């Protein structure tokens, strides 16, 4: 990678880190503590943006999978895999923050409430995607199977959401947000989204270089260099084949 690219990447991540720092300052200092829950409630400011980004990552995987099945270009599949991997990572964060929040709010680490159940199932759906990918040999087969599964998984997401809402909910209703809280929440979206995008792009580039390397390793394999049979074959096929045969030598 060229040094200009290297520097751009470094600046990107520094910017993200700074934005996070600024955001944390906002969260800790600027917003008031919520009456019932206290300081732990502030985890919500990260929880929601991460959750939204998880969904966007799943959506990206879905669209990339459809694009792959339509065009059969390897890089769509690499994008889908990258997005799905990041969605698993983000979903783990959603689960963790949800559980911490739940512990603070209701005193238990786990309950089969709609939100927690939904996060868990979403997490499992995409973990399975990663396991499938690592189990299938053969790039093309892996891509097709992965794409089909990613499409099905994403179509499942609204159904999971709706069915989870049937579960009894301990803590119904939404939180009331004062203006300061609303602003912080919106501000938190920025570093989180940038982080998510950065992770997807990084992973995508990793996948891409791996695919490209695999391809070029193949192309450089030495071939048969017996001359006599090739010439005989060429005599039957004509000048074009002779040129090809010479190219192979």
């Amino acid at each position, binding site marked *: 990678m060229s040094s200009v690219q290297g520097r751009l990447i470094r600046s990107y991540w520094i910017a993200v880190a700074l934005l996070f720092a600024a955001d944390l300052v906002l969260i800790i200092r600027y917003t008031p503590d919520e009456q019932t829950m206290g300081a732990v409630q502030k985890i919500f400011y990260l929880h929601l943006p991460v959750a939204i980004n998880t969904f966007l990552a799943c959506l990206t995987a879905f669209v990339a999978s459809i694009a792959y099945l339509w065009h059969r270009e390897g890089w769509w599949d690499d994008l889908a895999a990258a997005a799905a991997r990041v969605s698993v990572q983000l979903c783990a964060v959603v689960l963790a923050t949800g559980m911490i929040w739940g512990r603070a709010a209701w005193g238990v680490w786990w309950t089969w409430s709609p939100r927690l159940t939904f996060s868990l199932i979403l997490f499992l759906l995409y973990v399975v995607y990663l396991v499938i990918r690592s189990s299938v040999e053969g790039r093309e087969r892996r891509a097709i199977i992965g794409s089909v599964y990613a499409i*099905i998984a994403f179509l499942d997401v609204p159904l999971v959401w*709706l069915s989870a809402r*049937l579960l009894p909910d301990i803590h119904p209703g939404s939180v009331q947000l004062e203006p300061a809280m609303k602003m912080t929440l919106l501000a938190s979206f920025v570093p989180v989204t940038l982080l998510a995008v950065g992770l997807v792009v990084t992973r995508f580039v990793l996948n891409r270089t791996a695919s490209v390397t695999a391809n070029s390793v193949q192309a450089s394999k030495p071939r048969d260099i017996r001359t006599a049979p090739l010439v005989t074959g060429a005599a039957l096929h004509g000048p074009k084949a002779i040129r090809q045969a010479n190219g192979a030598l």
Partner: protein
Amino acid sequence: MPLVAQQFLLLVGKDLKIEARSRQTIGLVIVLGLLIVVVLGLGLGGGAAVGLGATVVLWVAYLFSGVLCFEKTMAVERSESALAALMLTPISRGTLYLAKLTSNLALMAAVALVITPAGVLFFSFDLSAAPVTFGAVMALGIVGFAAIGTLFAAVVSSTRLQGGLLAMMIFPVALPLVIASTQLLIHQFRDGLPVGGMGLGVLVAFDAIFLTASWLMFELVLEP
């Protein structure tokens, strides 16, 4: 009769005839389902989950025996590479999917007919309030389950993968079915509320969406 319907019936007939001759799949699958119900009944029975526990236990039994069933119906096609011959005939891939799905549903119906009464019995589940509702809800669930199961079984059978992969793929996707049907039945039997609204909507939507999606994508996963 249009050609498509004829071909469809031929394929389903073929699957059922093979099953009737070898009786391989049906025996295994029913016994497995029954064992699961018994094991869970023993473990949970006696107060812990009487009555409505049957719904979940039945679902667990359906899930595991279903996965086995779908694997075996695809294995029939793979054993002598008969699938390649089928793919050379003028049959459309969509028809192949529907035929496989119907064969799977027929087998699952047989399984359900045996293990559902067993579950109801072992858990002393009183169905008298709404037996038709119970049947309909479970039926909708099994249809959705088979819809994705048939697709995924085709995917898994064409690759040299280890066992358990099919179960791993189907279970998370099928969870909305389990949640919706158990919640629906809880509301019906414990709370006496009539079935309707979102729960039913989820089941119907699941079936519609995944029947269509699987039917469309079946040809992508088929490999001779």
